[in-house]
């Protein structure tokens, strides 16, 4: 038996509209809880790993350094933006697919192919005028990514092969294609390790601070374009309808299979663009161990941003900030805290998001039902045979 109180005195800590809850409060609470969990991990590691005095303030030191490394001045902020740029683009690639009810795990492969396409054209045009070389290299990245997105979309449309399976497979293929290209046809002769030549004039110009490149504008343009596509065009309406209710889409005379192919190809364009901005804006050349984290971080970004273009921007800034701040955190804590703490934080944020019911229970929140439509999409679409 529970305590017998008049129900009107029930605990109601928060009464939020469902949309505010899902879009703002839930991610915010998840981040705060993840930082708490991170503190516990840090303190526990101090206890477990012997040989240094126990320092209760270490989590504070670490988070302060993380923050300083991400936002403490123009250069750190530019670093954050640089790290967030590919996450915005690849996050859009995952988020757009979520809108169509597709779980695009293949952003990683599309990202790599996009980078490869860009570096191929960028190297070929590295002496050309930047006004030709840059658009051409970006376009090549988009097309290569699109091709890598088209394949799983096409397979799903003709045979119902689930995109989760095919995109994972294509990620592996992409890694091998990169390794082959970088050590074979694109390898710079004479290099001690397999890397391509520099992209030269195809490099994105620096527009903010020391090294904030043009890619950030490309990403912002993509955010606007995706938002416009999804909410202002009939094509976007079709994508959203297919994602929300494929049967209704069929009844409405839409062609879900076509939409699946289109959406995956567009996702490929976005992820490919992400790869292009990294290779043209940051590294200026490509190596086999290129871009191992962006594709997977982008899934987290899309989840945290609830697949909304604006949400993805904020999520990407958060994750970009953690990546940008990680080196200073390692430096200022005397390497007591490895960069992996960032992974722990990211994973914990996602765990809390996915387990939003748990948060509601812990905080005794009631009357708020809305969860993450994206995690629901995963649950709903995985195992569904075809569109």
């Amino acid at each position, binding site marked *: 038996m529970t305590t017998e109180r008049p129900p009107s005195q029930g605990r109601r800590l928060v009464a939020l509209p469902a949309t505010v809850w899902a879009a703002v409060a839930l991610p915010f609470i998840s981040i705060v809880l993840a930082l708490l969990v991170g503190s516990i991990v840090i303190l526990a*590691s101090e206890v477990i*790993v*012997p*040989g*240094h*005095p126990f320092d209760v303030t270490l989590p504070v030191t670490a988070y302060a350094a993380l923050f300083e*490394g991400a936002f403490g001045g123009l*250069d750190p902020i530019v*670093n954050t933006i*640089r*790290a967030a740029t590919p996450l915005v683009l690849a996050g859009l690639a995952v988020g757009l697919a979520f809108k169509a009810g597709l779980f695009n795990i293949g952003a990683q492969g599309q990202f790599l192919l996009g980078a490869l396409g860009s570096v191929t054209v960028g190297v070929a045009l590295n002496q050309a005028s930047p006004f030709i070389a840059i658009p051409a290299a970006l376009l090549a990245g988009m097309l290569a990514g699109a091709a890598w997105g088209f394949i799983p979309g096409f397979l799903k449309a003709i045979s119902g092969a689930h995109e989760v399976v095919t995109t994972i497979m294509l990620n592996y293929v992409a*890694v*091998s294609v*990169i*390794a*082959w290209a*970088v*050590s074979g046809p694109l390898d*710079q*002769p*004479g*290099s*001690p*390790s*397999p*890397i*391509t*030549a*520099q992209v030269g004039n195809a490099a994105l110009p620096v527009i903010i601070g020391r090294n904030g490149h043009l890619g950030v504008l490309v990403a912002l343009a993509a955010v606007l374009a995706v938002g416009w596509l999804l909410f202002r065009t009939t094509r976007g309406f079709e994508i959203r309808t297919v994602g929300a209710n494929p049967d209704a889409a069929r009844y409405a005379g839409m062609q879900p299979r076509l939409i699946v192919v289109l959406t995956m190809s567009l996702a490929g364009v976005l992820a490919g663009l992400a790869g292009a901005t*990294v290779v043209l804006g*940051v*590294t200026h*050349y490509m*190596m*086999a*161990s*290129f*871009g*191992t*984290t*962006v594709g997977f971080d982008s899934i987290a970004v899309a989840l945290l941003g609830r697949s909304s273009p604006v949400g993805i921007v904020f999520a990407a800034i958060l994750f970009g900030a953690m*990546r*940008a701040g*990680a*080196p*200073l955190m*390692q*430096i*200022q*804590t*005397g*390497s*007591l*805290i*490895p*960069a992996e703490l*960032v*992974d722990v934080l990211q994973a914990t944020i996602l765990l809390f998001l996915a387990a939003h019911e748990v948060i509601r229970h812990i905080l005794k929140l009631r009357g708020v039902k809305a969860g993450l439509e994206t995690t629901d999409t995963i649950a709903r679409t995985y195992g569904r045979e075809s569109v």
Partner: protein
Amino acid sequence: MRKQRWLGASAALVTLTLVLAACSSGASPSASAAGSSESAPASVPVTAHSDLKIGVVTDVGTANDKNFNEYTYVGTKQGAAAIGAAEPPVTVPKDSSEFASSIQAYVDDGYDIIVTAGFSLGVATTQAAHDNPDVWFIGVDQGPPCVNAEGLPDTTFACAGDAATLLPHFVALSYQEDQAGYLAGMAAASASKSGTIGAILGISLCGPCIRYTQGFKLGAESINPDIKLVVNWVTESDFVKAFNDPVSGKSYGDQFLQQNPDVDVLFQVAGKTGNGVLDAACEAGIYGIGVDVDQSLSYPNAAKCTITSAMKSLALAVSTDIGKIVDGSMKGGDDHWDASRDGIAYGPFHDLASAFPANMADLLDAAFAKMKAGTLVTCPEKCGDLSTLK
């Protein structure tokens, strides 16, 4: 400050570093198994440089990999300790696109010496050295440096610029891996009863790995001209799998040995992945040979079958150079470590000397002496070219 770090070395490692340090002053390329109490680079005057800030950026992976990253770090710590500087921190990028920003974070925080570990960081380190001429950079496995006339990383590899004058504060370490491989090859051929030995590389794209193996082949043939060497690599493309995945290494090693049952000595050239290869060798009841460091110590799990290792004196080189930077004698450019500088060595046999003929150490020392004298060819003409091994 904290004495021992999160990623800090174990007691065994401390012993090991002392052993390595001892190598530098001792005449023998092979360290005696017992720890020497001599401290690190004797040539460096131990003056207080407590305000000097030294930091390390490793390749993708983990700092405590009991291998390349860790020994570079150990060498840096040693060098720092020798000059009385604060214990250096280490940062580990998640991704190759973070190399530059990881280095930059030290620069921005006012560091004086930045050590970057691994050939993958070569371009990023060269660029940083160009952009920050007042900061010293030590690039491990990045020699010889290749710059154009402006001192920028020359990715066409014409290498027209003279790095030593253009980037006077960039020290690019290189090692004569084929010499270490040669010594290991001699040991392998001597220990093999079947006449068939094997080598497993992490990845086909790794120049130092290939040079190790080329030397290994020549060294083995110097003992037994009919020796058969089976060479394979874990992956063509995936660097994590190649150097940071002992589980894959183990299963790859198992399969390799099933396919090649005659192999009775197996050389791993695959970093931490190779630790799994050594496990596979132990399990199959054959001998293993470690790489880069004395793996009998760095990877005790396989010590029971690790008869020797092809060693680079990672810690020695880094700590020596830090000392030279401080005393003003260090110069930029290629800093090549070969037998003549004790930059390479073979690992002590520990308890497994019985695997070899009694005169093994003499043979190896003789070969090492010839290397020092520059009279022993340890790499074929196309040094670093995988096709010579196929």
